[in-house]
């Protein structure tokens, strides 16, 4: 049954906005998640618009990273995680029987907080996902690697030393390399888990610019604890607290005119 026709459960959250199923890339429906005894997410329901940047903000431990990792099933690795609810990607439930989890993760790429390039050359890092899929001629692979590095605004800095170790790059370059690596496999959605928190201000600016440029090609979901960053790069912002979705709306509205007191307290810094 298409998501639009399903009855919505009553929610305490103040959704300023809802997207039509056609405009949304991901739809999260009544998603709850627990690490053993600890409840991390409680009955979340929201849709994430296609080709836009959506930011999750909230205090530490509010569940924003947990939510992000639920979108490409990275929690599968942890036996202690118990999940209820659904996540739909382009009209397909990602926990469904016919879904290959490796294929899902290719479609929903992820960039982590700390840059995690593999201990290989720059080229091999970007080609890693392509080689997993196989079936690409060397020429085609070279082209894709170059395209991905250009898309991540890294090509000009590394084109002379593609065979050098990825670990010889600076932190900011490493993070852009990781983004290039993810872009190379052609994802529809890119999840970014505090991608700039380990970087210096200039590298952060480069990453933010990159995020803004990438939204013409794919859907981006950004987790950040930096509200200025969320305000600078995102189109929509969801505020989470204690595993609940508190408020969700266009970034401008949410930051200038929040509907709920809890949101206002958080964004004005009266509560962390």
């Amino acid at each position: 049954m298409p998501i639009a026709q399903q009855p919505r459960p009553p929610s305490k959250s103040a959704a300023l906005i809802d997207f039509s199923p056609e405009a949304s890339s991901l739809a999260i429906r009544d998603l709850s998640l627990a690490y053993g005894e600890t409840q991390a997410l409680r009955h979340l329901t929201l849709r994430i618009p296609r080709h836009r940047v959506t930011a999750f903000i909230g205090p530490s431990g509010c569940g924003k990273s947990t939510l992000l990792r639920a979108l490409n099933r990275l929690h599968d690795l942890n036996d202690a995680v118990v999940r209820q609810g659904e996540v739909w990607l382009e009209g397909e439930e990602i926990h469904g029987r016919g879904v290959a989890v490796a294929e899902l993760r290719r479609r929903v790429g992820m960039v982590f907080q700390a840059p995690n390039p593999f201990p290989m050359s720059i080229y091999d890092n970007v080609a890693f996902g392509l080689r997993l899929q196989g079936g690409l001629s060397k020429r085609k692979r070279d082209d894709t690697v170059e395209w991905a590095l250009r898309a991540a605004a890294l090509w000009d800095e590394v084109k002379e030393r593609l065979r050098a170790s990825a670990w010889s790059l600076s932190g900011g370059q490493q993070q852009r390399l990781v983004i290039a690596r993810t872009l190379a496999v052609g994802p529809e959605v890119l999840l970014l888990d505090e991608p700039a928190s380990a970087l210096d201000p200039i590298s952060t600016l480069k990453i933010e610019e990159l995020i803004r440029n990438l939204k013409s090609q794919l859907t981006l979901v950004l987790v950040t604890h930096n509200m200025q960053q969320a305000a600078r790069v995102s189109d929509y912002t969801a505020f989470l607290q204690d595993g609940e979705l508190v408020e969700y709306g266009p970034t401008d509205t949410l930051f200038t005119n929040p509907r709920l007191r809890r949101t206002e307290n958080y964004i004005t810094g009266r509560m962390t």
Partner: protein
Amino acid sequence: MRWAFGSRARRSRREGIGAWLAAGSVALSLLALLALLALLTIRGLGHFWPAPIALVMLEDGRQLAGEHVREVPLPEGEGRERLYRTGNRDLEGSRWQWVPVSSITAVSHPPDLVVLERRRWGEAIGRLTSLQRETGERVEGEPAWAALNARLAELASLRQARDALREEIILPQVRPLEEGDEAPRLEAANARLRELQAAMQGGHLILEAVDGRRLEVPLEQARRARRPNGMSSLEKLVAWGNGVWRFLSEGPRAANTAGGVWPAIFGTVLMVMLMSILVTPFGVLAAIYLNEVAHQGRLTRLVRISVRNLAGVPSIVYGVFGLGVFVYGIGGTLDEWFFDATLPSPTFGTGGLLWASLTLALLTLPVVIVATEEGLARIPDQQREGALALGATRLEMLTRVVLPMATPAMLTGMILAVARAAGEVAPLMLVGVAKLAPQVPLDGDFPFLHLERKFMHLGYHIFDAALHGGDVEAAMPLVYATALLLVLVILVLNLTAIFLRHHLSMRHGALAR
């Protein structure tokens, strides 16, 4: 203020003592190690240096010639006593003589004293008086020395030719002989062998011991001769190098109290290599399962603790296990199935290279598992998640990201395993080491690697030569030399593995170290 100052002084004083203690224990450990190596080196390598031969005059008018070995105090203050290695066992009944220092009137080192190594009776020490060539010609006095050396060189090359020929003849005879075309070739070779052996016969030399008794030695019995008192340092160095080389390249003689240790070196290295080949895959797979695949629950923890404890089980226990399970159990069954023609004499149902390697592999398995697991645990989860997030399956993640990064850790495990296995002797005594196995388990005979054969081992060779040889005095220097060699072999094996690890961690980046 004053109190605070005093306290700081006390504290810094205490800190000073701590640093001294720590530095002292490091220095002490280093000193102990250096002392160990120095003892092994001096006693072991010194043995091959041509020692001067002393001519000793005694009170009662007797004379003796020999190499000064050591001097010990007699009980109850009755002076000191010296041990000389005098050789001439066929004259004296012993190669050693104890002499009270008080009875010695003079000691000199005449340059014409000859040390002759013979095939039987060991060394002879005396003066060369005459030599009768194989042609019957007699040479007296000083020219006899030159003639002897010429003939010895001749004999050495003849012997070499004979040994090569023998190998050619004997080896095919060990195999079931194929009739026909082999026969004429064999006949020719046999004739040539008889010729060579005849050429080696004939001639003898007369050696006069210092007490005037004469020794007649057939020339084919003589191996090497030297006059150590007359040798220059360079000549001594050459003789030393030759001695070391013979020790490394020849097989043992005289119930392991003389000769070389080549089969033992070969056996040790081959056994350790086989052990590494067996233990590494098993250990690595077990570690991967424990760290990457298994549910991290109570059972996994229990298995992990058990594995760590297995590393502390005394090695002889593994020997007993190997004897019961590998040798009698599996080996006995193999014999019943495949080698029943030769029963009751066992093929695999007795100790051998394979069983020894397997037993040591089992012994070192915990070491490899623990080291690999630690390496795996050091790899950040972000690397694993990074691979998964790119659409890798768990197997792809393991083989393409995790294992390459853990390779140095696996090699560390292998290094530790090699270090432990190469020095292990106790379990080997039960599962396949031999006192004497001159045939190395690797040769040109199908199937080239003879896993069922018994083999020699440096560690066991030390044990055997030190305790079970007839002549302990003769064996001791070889024990030191063998011990030094064992240390060096382990060092070389370790350095090889460390070099390999370094090479790999260069390739996989700094973190993987």
